[in-house]
C-alpha cells in the first residue's frame, strides 16, 4: 500500500475543551465563515488529504456550546478549496436518510468530487429530545439505524445511472427513465422509495468512514488503537499536541488543563516535538493506511504541522499531497465504483 493519507479534525478550536483560550481570535469570531475558511485553507495548504468536521445537534461537552451544522461547514468551504477532502460527521440515529443522502451528494457536487461522510451512532438521550423523537438506545437498534442509513444513502447515490440525463432533442426527453431506479428500501423503522433528487454524485459513491463495526459498509475504518484487524483501508486516530516556539507541548496542555481539565481520550495521544511526530507517523505508515489527527488547539498545532511535520513526510514519500483536479476517492487510491443498478 503506497498511499498514506493525512487527515485532520477541524471542529471548533481543537480537541481540548479550553482550546478557545489559545485560538488566534476572539470567541465571538469563532463561528464565522472567515475563521472557518482560514482553518481549512491552512490544512489544505499544509498538504492534508482530508479534513473532518465533528458535530451534534446538542452542545458539545466542551467550553464551546455553539456549533454550526457540519454539512453546512463542509459545504461552505467546498468552492474555496481545491484539493482537500471534506468530511462531515452526521448522526444516523434520528436524521432522515433521504435528506442526508441529498445533502452530502450536494457537497460532492460543490466540491467537485471531494465529499465524504462519517456516519455515527448517537447515544445521547438529549439528542432524541432535541429531535422530538422516541429514544433509541439499545445497541442493536443503534446499529440498525446506522446500517440502514448507510444502505439507503448508498442506494440513492446509485439510483441515477451516470448517463441518466440524455437531453434527447428529437424525442423531447431530458431523462432516460430506464436509467433511474427506485431503491425500494424496506427497513424495520423506515422505508425509502427513491430515486434520489440529486443525480449520481461526481465520485459515484462518496468516501464513507466508519468504525470496526461498520467495516463491511464503509471505505475507511477509523481505528483508535493498533489492535484493529487490517482489511481494507484503516486509519489511526491520534490526539496531537506539539511543541511551539513559545511553549512546549506539555506546558501548553498544562495551561489549558488549568482552565478546563480535558476528559481522558480513548484515542492514542502524542505530546512532544514535531520531529518525534514525524517518526511516529512514518512508523504508523507501515501498519496503517492513514491517520486522522486531532490537534489540541487547531491554530497553534496546524502551524507546527504545516512547517515541521508534513514537509518531511511529503518529501520522503511517506505521504502524498492530494492531486489537484482528482477526487477524494482517487487521492485515497480508491476507484470510482460501478453503479449497482446498471445492467451489465
Amino acid at each position, binding site marked *: 500500500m503506497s498511499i498514506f493519507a493525512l487527515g485532520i479534525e477541524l471542529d471548533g478550536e481543537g480537541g481540548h475543551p479550553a482550546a478557545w483560550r489559545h485560538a488566534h481570535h476572539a470567541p465571538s469570531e469563532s463561528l464565522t465563515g472567515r475563521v472557518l475558511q482560514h482553518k481549512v485553507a491552512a490544512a489544505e495548504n499544509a498538504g492534508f488529504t482530508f479534513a473532518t468536521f465533528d458535530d451534534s445537534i446538542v452542545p458539545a461537552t466542551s467550553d464551546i456550546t455553539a456549533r*454550526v451544522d457540519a454539512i453546512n461547514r463542509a459545504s461552505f468551504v467546498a468552492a474555496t478549496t481545491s484539493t482537500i477532502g471534506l468530511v462531515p460527521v452526521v448522526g444516523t440515529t434520528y436524521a432522515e436518510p433521504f435528506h442526508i443522502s441529498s445533502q452530502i451528494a450536494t457537497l460532492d457536487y460543490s466540491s467537485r468530487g471531494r465529499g465524504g461522510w462519517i456516519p455515527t451512532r448517537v447515544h445521547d438521550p438529549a439528542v432524541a429530545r432535541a429531535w422530538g423523537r422516541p429514544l433509541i438506545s439499545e445497541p442493536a437498534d443503534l446499529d440498525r439505524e446506522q446500517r440502514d442509513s448507510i444502505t439507503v444513502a448508498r442506494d440513492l447515490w446509485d439510483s441515477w445511472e451516470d448517463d441518466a440525463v440524455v437531453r434527447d432533442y428529437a424525442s423531447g426527453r431530458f431523462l432516460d427513465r430506464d436509467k433511474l431506479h427506485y431503491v425500494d428500501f424496506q427497513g424495520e423503522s423506515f422505508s425509502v422509495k*427513491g430515486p434520489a433528487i440529486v443525480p449520481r454524485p461526481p465520485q459515484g459513491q462518496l468516501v464513507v468512514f466508519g468504525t470496526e463495526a461498520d467495516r463491511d459498509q464503509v471505505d475507511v475504518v477509523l481505528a483508535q488503537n493498533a489492535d484493529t484487524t487490517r482489511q481494507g483501508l484503516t486509519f489511526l486516530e491520534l490526539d496531537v499536541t506539539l511543541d511551539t516556539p513559545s511553549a512546549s507541548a506539555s506546558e501548553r496542555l498544562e495551561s489549558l488543563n488549568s482552565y478546563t481539565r480535558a476528559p481522558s481520550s480513548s484515542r492514542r495521544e502524542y505530546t512532544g516535538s514535531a520531529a518525534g511526530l514525524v517518526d511516529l507517523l512514518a512508523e504508523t505508515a507501515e501498519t496503517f493506511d492513514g491517520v486522522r489527527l486531532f490537534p489540541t488547539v487547531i491554530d497553534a498545532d496546524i502551524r507546527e504541522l504545516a512547517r515541521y511535520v508534513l514537509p518531511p513526510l511529503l518529501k520522503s514519500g511517506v505521504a502524498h499531497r492530494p492531486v489537484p483536479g482528482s477526487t477524494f476517492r482517487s487521492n485515497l487510491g480508491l476507484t470510482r465504483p460501478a453503479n449497482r443498478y446498471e445492467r451489465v
Partner: protein
Amino acid sequence: MTLHRPDAQVHFGVFFQGVNHTTIWSDPASGSQIDFETFRRIIGTAERGLFDAFFLGEGLRLREQEGKILDLDIAGRPDAIAQLSALAGITSNIGLVATQNTTYNEPGDLARRLAGLDILSDGRAGWNAVTTDNAWTGENFRRGGFLDHELRYERADQFIRTARAIWDAWADDAIATSRDSEFWAEKDAVQRVSLSTSQFDVDLDSTLPRSRQGHPVIFQAGDSPTGRDFAAANADVIFSRHGTDFDEALTFANDIRARLRAAGRPEDDIKILPGTQIVLAENAAEVEEKERWVRDGQFTGPTALSLVGLVWGKDLSDRDPDGPLPSEDPVVAPISSTRGAFRDGKDPVEIAKEWRALAEAKNLSLREVAIETTVRSGFAGTPGQVADELTKWVREGATDGFNISPYIVPGGLDEIVDWLVPELQERGAYRTEYTETTLRGHLGLREPLTRRKTGETDSSAAG
C-alpha cells in the same frame, strides 16, 4: 397613474427552479442544471446586478406521470441548504433563500441548518417555508406519507414557532469577545427551548447564536386563504404567483395588506415578490420573435401532450400535439394520477370543457391550448418598456419586486443585469450599490417578529 410610493425601488430575486419545463434545455447555450459552475455563474451575475436574493426550490421526490417517472423536463437538483452554504462561501452580499418543507423535516434539525447558513453567510439566509399533504412524497421519509390537509398549516405554524424559539434562545452578545473571559459564552445567556404542541415535543439546548440579521428571513408561497393568513401571521416576504397581470397583483397586494392590518402588523410589514419571467430585446419585432422562441422551447410537442395529459388523466404521448384536443372526456381518477404537479383541485371535466371552448373560439391546436392556458409569460419588451412597467408595479403598490426565473441557465440573467438594471437605475427605481449586508437589510424589513412581540429592541437586527 397614481404613485402611492413615489420613491419605491424594484427588488429582484432569482429563482433557480432546476426542475421544470420552463427552463429551456434544448438550446446549445443551455448548461447543466446540476454542475456547481452553473450556480456559481448565475449567482455571480445576480450579485453583480445587486439582486436581493438567490432562491432554490426543493425536491423530495421525482415527479411521475401515469405511474412513470416524468422524463420530459429538467429534473435533478442539489439540496438547497447544502448548496446555498457552498454559494455563501463565494458571495458576499446576496441573500440565500432555501425552500424547505415543514412536513418532512423536524424543527430542531431544520432550524439549526437554516441558522447555520445564516451565521456562515453573516446574515444572508432566508427560508421559504412550504407545506405538503402529498402522501406520495412521504414514501421517502421516516414519518411516512400521511398528514391531513387541514393539519399541514397547523404543523407549519407550530414548526415556525418552534424554529423561532430556537433562534431566539441565545441572547445577543452571549459569546465572549475576549479569550481572557471567564467563559466562552455567558452561562445564563442561553435559554433552554422546551415546547410541547400537538405536532411537536421538542426539548433542547440550542447550538446557534443569533446572526447579524437576527435569524433567517421567512418567506411564504401558498396562495389559499389559509396560506395568506399564515403569511400575515408569520412571513416577512410572500413569494406570490401574481407576476403577470397588474390588476390581479394589486388585488392580491391589497388583500395581503388587509390581512396584515387584521393581524396587528403594519401594512408594509411584508414584501411581495411574485415569480415572473422577463424577455428582453431591442425592438418590437425582436421582442415578438424572442417570445415565440422562448414559448416554443418551453412547450415542445411532448411537453404539451404531457401537460394536457395531466388534465385528461391519461397518457396522450402518441397524439399529434398540433392536432385538436382529445375528443373523449377526461378520466376522473379518484386520486391524481400525476405526482408532484398541480391541478389546483379543479374538476378535469370542467377544465376540458373550458379548454374545448377556447380551442373552438380561437381555432387552437392542442399545443396552442397548452400554451394559452399554462404560460404565465411575465414581462416582454425593450429594456426601457419593461423598466417603465416594473417601476409602475412597484410604485403603485402591486408588488415590491420580482423573483425572476431565467428561461435559460446559466446565461439567462445576463440581459436582465446588463440591460434592464441600468434602465431601472436611470429611473431611480433600483439601487446603485448594496447599502446593507444582510438579506433583511436589502429588503428593508423591520426586526424579526418575535423581537417586537417581546418588546425587546435590537438596533442591529434591522440592519
